């Protein structure tokens, strides 16, 4: 019997006179190999995490190899505890009784001679118990290992400096091009439900150039030399696209041509909405020609040819 249990027992005997205990001596009512006084038994029991833990303790206390359990002896001790707990009317978890039954069964099987064939079939009745004990001890050790790891709040502490005044930053939403295309698909579906005619789109190259031309015309006080709209460096394709863009702008009455007299320089200006200059280029740019023009572009430029009609 050790000191702390002794102290505990002394503390407890003050209000519990059921069993007299002499310090350092095993109590007569208890099995001789139990070194725990009954007063301490409840605390003792609470220190175990269950029947496997208690069994492990009993085995370790005898310095026994798990593989070499003297089942009879361990069973006797284990039963001793169970009896004692019941005698003291301690609340006993069902798992302890289950283990008691298992131990009793193993013990009886060890004692009874069995036909060899059956023995081979079922193996050592202790094997399952040993496996469980090993598995449990492994986890018990692992839990102790985790408990020893340096951890926050006990061995390590989080640190923080006080924050500066935060600068409120406004971020623009991110958009994936696919989202834009999905949105377009949705709007096209809707448009086709509501409208008889197909929504018509010009080739994108022309559309883009239309915007550029319009912006250029408007940036130059709405008056630009026709020739200045073309970039010879873009080559034939570029010139055609620009030309188509100007034609389309004229057709949509967004720009108009101005020529002072025959063979004079042609100028392009933002449409005024009022036709007041005498020689104005023909703005009656028909739909048929439109398709021809686009066909021309398609024939020349692969990049544009896949545009939907």
């Amino acid at each position, binding site marked *: 019997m050790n000191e702390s249990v002794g102290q505990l027992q002394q503390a407890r005997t003050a209000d519990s006179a059921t069993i007299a205990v002499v310090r350092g001596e095993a109590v007569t009512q208890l099995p001789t190999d139990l070194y725990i006084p009954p007063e301490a038994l409840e605390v003792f029991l609470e220190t175990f995490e269950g029947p496997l833990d208690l069994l492990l303790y009993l085995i370790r206390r005898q310095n026994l190899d798990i593989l070499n359990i003297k089942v009879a002896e361990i069973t006797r001790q284990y039963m001793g505890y169970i009896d004692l707990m019941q005698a003291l009317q301690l609340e006993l978890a069902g798992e302890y009784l289950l283990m008691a039954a298992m131990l009793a069964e193993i013990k009886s099987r060890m004692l009874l001679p069995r036909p060899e064939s059956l023995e081979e079939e079922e193996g050592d009745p202790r094997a399952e118990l040993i496996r469980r004990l090993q598995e449990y001890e492994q986890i018990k050790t692992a839990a102790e290992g985790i408990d020893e790891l340096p951890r926050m709040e006990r061995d390590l502490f*989080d640190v923080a400096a*006080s924050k500066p005044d935060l600068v409120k*930053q406004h971020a623009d939403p991110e958009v994936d*091009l696919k989202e*834009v295309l999905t*949105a377009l*698909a*949705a709007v096209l579906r809707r448009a086709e439900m509501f409208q008889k005619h197909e929504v018509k789109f010009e080739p994108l190259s022309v*559309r883009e150039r239309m915007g550029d031309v*319009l912006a250029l015309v408007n940036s130059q006080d709405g008056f630009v030399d026709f020739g200045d709209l073309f970039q010879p460096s873009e080559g034939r394709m570029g010139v055609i696209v620009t030309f188509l863009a100007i034609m389309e702008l004229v057709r949509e009455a967004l720009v108009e041509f101005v020529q002072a007299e025959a063979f004079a320089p042609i100028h392009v200006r933002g449409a005024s909405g009022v036709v007041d200059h005498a020689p104005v280029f023909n703005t009656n740019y028909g739909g048929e020609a439109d398709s021809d023009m686009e066909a021309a572009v398609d024939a020349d430029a692969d990049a544009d040819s896949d545009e939907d009609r």
Partner: protein
Amino acid sequence: MDEAQIQRIIEAALLASDGPLTVANLTKLFGPGELDEENATRQVREALKALQEDSADRGVELKRVASGYRYQVRQELSEWVSRLWDEKPPRYTRALLETLALVAYKQPVTRGDIEQVRGVSVSQNIMRTLVERDWIRVVGQREVPGRPSLYGTTKTFLDYFNLQALTELPPLAEIRALIEPALVEPDESITVAVQTTDDPETDPESADVVQLHSGASPSN
């Protein structure tokens, strides 16, 4: 206890504490005999001074405030540090994305043109947002009553979506295929999925699935 250790303890305590600590608070951290009994306060003050000098060129500085000493992040770094708390940017509405798509594919267009195709009115707000983002711009006016603005896309728009020119946008045929998927070959269809929000935490190095080796030496 040597000065370096006193400084280490004070630095650690100031950073671990939830609020500022006074010289008295700090002095109490030391056990009997760890500071000179007569000079304890002076020793702590000297350590604070040394730590203050030491932090002169660092990201945090040791400051004395009304209720004691504390480490604080340098105000001039707040521009960067603030980004830790940046709110996720809001997402654009479907109406805005549709409007943007129509400007891109049908430019130059007026708001009225867009409304006609979408079948619903386009709020001035949407146009303003797109202009402020510098994705669309006014390229002119249509000479009809009211002289509505004509919109086109900008260079910024192309840059944002990583396009050299509008012609790099998928042709409308592909967009239409999104409506009638049956018409395209399965492996030709472009997969269009709205990106789910990315998890900014994701670090490829710290995956959740880890192999457990029992007995193996821990990897770095």
